[in-house]
């Protein structure tokens, strides 16, 4: 296998990694917000459920969760696992895991908002929904951005856990090529890729944080 073929295969893995990353964020960010609502709900059942969910998701290894999501349908319900399901399993496991972390971040941000903002909005006649989406949430985003950045950067590296169900993302691909070609090159390429990917993500987040610094 020449370098070019190797790089082509690695490129496929890269694309898959980026896909996992984007899809995980796409689902976990809104899901996390919903869970944080549950966690802050006045309904004791809902609140208890959200609390339990968060504690399980944060208290067990992501790799284990991934295996459960992937093999669960077969072991528990006897449903045959298709190869397409491998991709779904990765995104499902990552999204529900990251949603738990994001839920706690949202909650911290929402609870840190001064009461006066709600009261000013109420006196001005904003509805509860308007108050949340126009007044509270935009300010919450600014407050939680540094914590979200941390999670997002962790996610870039966590995507490699998809390796545990042999999903052909960057890490899995690199390892396979390295083994068959007896070469370090794929690992070095993978390292560079993750580093550059993280660098870009961090730069984007920093740019966003800067953009939000027009007020304090």
């Amino acid at each position: 296998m020449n370098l070019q073929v190797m790089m082509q295969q690695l490129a496929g893995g890269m694309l898959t990694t980026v896909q996992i990353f984007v899809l995980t964020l796409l689902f976990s960010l809104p899901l996390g917000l919903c869970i944080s609502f549950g966690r802050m709900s006045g309904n004791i059942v809902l609140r208890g459920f959200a609390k339990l969910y968060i504690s399980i998701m944060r208290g067990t290894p992501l790799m284990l969760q991934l295996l459960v999501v992937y093999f669960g349908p077969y072991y528990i319900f006897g449903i045959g696992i298709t190869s397409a399901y491998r991709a779904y399993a990765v995104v499902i496991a990552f999204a529900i895991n990251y949603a738990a972390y994001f839920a706690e971040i949202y909650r911290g941000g929402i609870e840190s908002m001064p009461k006066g903002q709600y009261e000013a909005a109420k006196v001005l006649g904003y509805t509860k929904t308007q108050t949340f989406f126009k007044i509270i949430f935009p300010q919450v985003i600014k407050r939680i951005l540094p914590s979200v950045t941390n999670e997002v950067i962790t996610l870039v590296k966590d995507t490699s856990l998809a390796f545990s169900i042999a999903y052909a993302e960057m890490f899995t691909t690199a390892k396979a090529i390295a083994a068959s070609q007896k070469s370090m090159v794929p690992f070095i390429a993978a390292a560079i890729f993750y580093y550059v990917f993280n660098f870009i993500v961090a730069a984007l987040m920093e740019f966003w944080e800067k953009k939000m610094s027009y007020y304090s």
Partner: protein
Amino acid sequence: MKLLEMNHVKKSFDGNVVLKNISLSVEEGEVVSIIGPSGSGKSTLLRCATLLETMDDGDLYYLNEAAAVSEGGRSVYASGSKLKTIERQFGLVFQNFNLFPHYSVLKNITDAPIHVQKREKKEVIEEARVLLEKMGLSDRADYYPCQLSGGQQQRVSIARALAMNPKILFFDEPTSALDPELTGEILKVITDLAKEKMTMVIVTHEMNFAKEVSDRMIFMDKGVIVEETTPEELFASTNQRTREFLGKYHILNG
């Protein structure tokens, strides 16, 4: 016409009685100020009037529309939609402004008229510019609250309240969060509003200002109204609690 009427209001926070049977009514065009020592329940009264706090017992009417009536020893509030229409009658200026930090000055003022009252954007913006001019802030429309002095922020928050065209405006210690040299500018704005016959209820510790601007003054202590009369009479009061309180400000007459 009576704009606000509160009857026999009672309010306690976990057993601690803060308002004991308070009645207050305000006529159109009147300026009423409320004074009293810290913890006497002034803010709580204002918060009950502005629906930020629910009364335990008592009635609350705006322009003879019931927001809450006392039934069987407790306040029963009107439906949510009824309260929403009643909320349009009043505005509130907070001690610490509570401007929306992520909105520009202009957006702070125009957002609620546009998105709550659903008024025409162009007209609202024009009105907001007039208000800003009146507040001496014409050149600050595009600033953010954090770029303004406390006095300027408070003027924006007054403009924000006025943009909703309230019938009655409440102030809870509008100058207490400000450096002394910035209080004057706010008091002047309120004095100007009084001259325009804006109906206002003002909780304040600025005795000289209250004396100048008010048609009526209320002295509250420990959850009750001790005295309610004209500024002249209040400052000449023979009531011992009133004299004791006012004595701290060295402004007693007679």
